[in-house]
């Protein structure tokens, strides 16, 4: 739609055309029963409010037009009327009861997370989502899902793509028509998992588990955002859910399991410093660069530099502990639960040998395992 067309829609809706087409001026097209109920409830509420609005302001603007001194209006002197006052107290109560009834039904339905077909745990991290398929077909699949829009698009050095800021590297995949229970938690601060088309928004609270559910009736790609302010890149941690047919889902699950098997690490593998640092650079770009920056200069003082930092150049034990457990009270997250021993060893090795840092030291994956055990 052109700007002019949207302006027209804007003006129309302003004048009361509540039935404007869904999608851009209204709630997104619902694809679950709950979202459908919410959509209809909102339409109903809007109509009721509009009616009251027209009635009340019809009276007021008529009065503004007719009862003005310049038209010779003489002021009456009434200032109360018990009957009228009782009526306009009781009638709204009745209207509210009419609104409360469907809302109550939906609230209860939204809370019913029993008997899911598939249970997925979503974990909010600053600033990405981790997913674990806990139960049902696909059990055992786990991955991290981060924004895939290139920084150049954000900074205006490249044209913005169709799904700018609403696209991820690893989308959640679920089968159509199955009840999916989503368990939510967070690693650092509160996030919120929100997919508008599903009518699902649930806070992810660190240290606690909450749950919600959805059953998508249509295949397709549905997008949402983190909906609770979670720090610097709150606006850059979208959610992308692919609803696929059952066969496609089974194929996806098989593919995921095969990939895990193929990339399973040989714990006995001997790494060279170059190999480990190269892998570490990738891990760093995906997990650390948002704060500490690709050049290791950070964004002090909130996000300290690693280039030339004492913690990176000092004894390795301390750095391992910090990366594993995070720093309470700062944005430094605990990566122990997010990354494998090899990835942790790689990224620590990388930071100790990147930019101006040249300790020449290599941290072996086994050292991470030992540090975990010691905790």
């Amino acid at each position, binding site marked *: *739609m052109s700007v002019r067309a*949207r302006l027209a829609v*804007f003006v129309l809706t302003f004048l009361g055309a509540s039935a404007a087409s869904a999608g851009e*001026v209204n*709630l997104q097209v619902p694809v679950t029963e*709950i979202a459908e109920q*919410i959509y209809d409830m*909102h339409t109903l*509420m809007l109509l009721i409010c509009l009616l*009251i609005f027209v009635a009340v302001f019809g*009276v*007021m603007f008529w*009065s*503004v037009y007719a*009862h*003005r*001194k*310049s038209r010779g*209006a*003489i*002021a009456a002197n009434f*200032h*109360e009327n018990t009957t009228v006052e009782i009526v306009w*107290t009781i009638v709204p109560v009745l209207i*509210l009861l009419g*609104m*409360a009834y469907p*809302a109550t039904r939906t*609230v209860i339905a939204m*809370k019913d997370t029993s008997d899911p077909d598939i249970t997925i745990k979503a974990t909010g991290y600053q600033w990405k989502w981790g997913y674990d398929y806990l139960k049902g077909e696909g059990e055992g699949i786990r991955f991290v899902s981060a924004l895939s829009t290139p920084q150049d698009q*954000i900074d205006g050095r490249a044209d*913005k793509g*169709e799904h*700018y*800021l*609403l696209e991820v590297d690893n989308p959640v995949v679920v089968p159509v028509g199955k009840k999916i229970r989503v368990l939510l938690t967070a690693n*650092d*601060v509160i996030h919120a998992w*929100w997919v508008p088309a599903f*009518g*699902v928004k*649930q806070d992810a*609270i*660190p*240290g*606690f588990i*909450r749950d919600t559910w959805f059953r998508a009736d249509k295949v397709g790609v549905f997008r949402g*955002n983190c909906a609770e*302010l*979670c*720090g*610097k*890149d*709150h606006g*850059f941690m979208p959610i992308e859910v692919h609803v696929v047919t059952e066969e496609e889902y089974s194929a996806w699950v098989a593919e995921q399991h095969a990939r895990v098997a193929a990339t399973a690490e040989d714990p006995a593998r001997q790494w060279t410093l170059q190999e480990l640092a190269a892998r570490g650079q990738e891990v760093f770009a995906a997990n650390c660069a948002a704060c500490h920056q690709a050049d290791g200069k950070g964004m002090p*003082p*909130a996000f300290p530099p690693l280039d030339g930092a004492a913690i990176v150049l000092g004894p390795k034990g301390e750095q391992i502990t910090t990366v594993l457990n995070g720093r*309470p*009270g700062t*944005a430094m997250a605990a990566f122990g639960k997010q990354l494998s021993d090899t990835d942790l060893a790689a990224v620590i090795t990388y930071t100790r040998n990147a930019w101006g840092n040249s300790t020449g030291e290599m941290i072996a994956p086994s050292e991470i395992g030992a540090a975990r055990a010691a905790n």
Partner: protein
Amino acid sequence: MAAVTPDQLHGHHHGPTGLMRWITTTNHKDIGTMYLVFALIMFFAGGVMALTIRAELFQPGLQVVQPEFFNQLTTMHGLVMVFGAIMPAFVGFANWQIPLMIGASDMAFARMNNWSFWLLPPAALLLVGSFLVPGGATAAGWTLYAPLSVQMGMGMDMAIFAVHIMGASSIMGAINIVVTILNMRAPGMTMMKMPLFVWTWLITAYLLIAVMPVLAGAVTMILTDRHFGTAFFNAAGGGDPVLFQHVFWFFGHPEVYIMILPAFGIVSQIIPTFARKPLFGYASMVYATASIAILSFVVWAHHMFTTGMPAATQLFFMYATMLIAVPTGVKVFNWVATMWKGSMTFETPMLFAVGFIFVFTMGGFTGLICAIAPIDIQVQDTYYVVAHFHYVLVAGSLFALFAGTYYWLPKWTGHMPSEKIGKWHFWCSIVFFNLAFFPMHFLGLAGMPRRIPDYGLQFADFNAIATIGAFGFGFSQLLFVLAIVKCARGGERAAARSWEAAEGLEWTVPSPAPHHTFEEAPLVR
């Protein structure tokens, strides 16, 4: 009681002059003026932040500011507008008007009155100055949710102290107002004869005394979690992040009414004056105000429907919240009934009052829609909510403050405000306000979260419109300053009863109101 001695019978000011006059003054009119000027300055400070936010959001992509600074701006815009602009402005109105309207010579505790004002500038310096410290200002949102607020730098500590100081100032101001209203009314002015502005402020003052300590407690818990090893909001230490939200919103929801009840009071003074007809349903207005205040204590968790409460809790808070629509509706009906069969004229105060009813009611309707828990879960933390609370806070509180300013400026300055500037101010404000905030409803419904510096391409057009509206609204406010400055410096002389049909004790004293008024209490029949 008051620091007014009997030998100051004539209307002039005695004592120190220049700056010392303002620092040492215990006169309610001087203090009221200082509150109002302070609020106006903070309003522009918060406005500059808002326009920077809107400039960044004009187009998709990052152009003007980076995400960290953007979050600092949204946070500080909220804190500055709530604690620096709207609340002090209403206290300024209370200081000027309550003694004049109840026939008292001054506020009950004149020295404490001075102190509660002079706490504000240092608090404001702490707050605004936090932009300059390492790490910048707090970026945790004006709601300061833990654990994000625990991650912040020292700007957060400065904000916490600023909130403490402003809270102390508000509590002192509120105690002063309660004592003044209860003890210093002119003989014959029974409670049910008090002007509605006085009634709304009495109830607001009780709300302030009840909830400001709760806010102080909440931010103190953040402070000790940050620096003294406590774990109120940290699950690893046995705490719960959601506890903060419960405590914050137990303050936060009554706070919403703290910012709107005095606005209801102002509008209830203005409508009868320009309709030339007594206020319809005075008693029901008082009861409605009291019911809103009482209900405000049992609805706080409607800000938290997405935290994952049990169904029964969600239902309780949903029903309680919906109930607030009843007394609020009564008020709107009463105003319309007051206008009905009146003999209306539309000077600037009336324009803003009618504009208030019209636009505030839209905010009321979106509030009702947000009360429905399932719908709220869709729109919570989206631009829909941003639109909703700006409809009640800007078109509600702020428009009422504008209306009240134009209404009582003749009493304060002795000159009539320019109708020409006032009308321009009104029409620009209401048009640009709607241009800025109406599209935000669509953005929120379509799925744009709030507090994000950048957004998907489908939100681009409405954001551009909103930014244009916001800049128009911002620059329109220069007209307000112009109107005030012109009125203070000269203009048509105002009579004691500056508006034809104005009722109330404040219109029995000369304009401008002399430095000391009602040293001998008037008799109210």
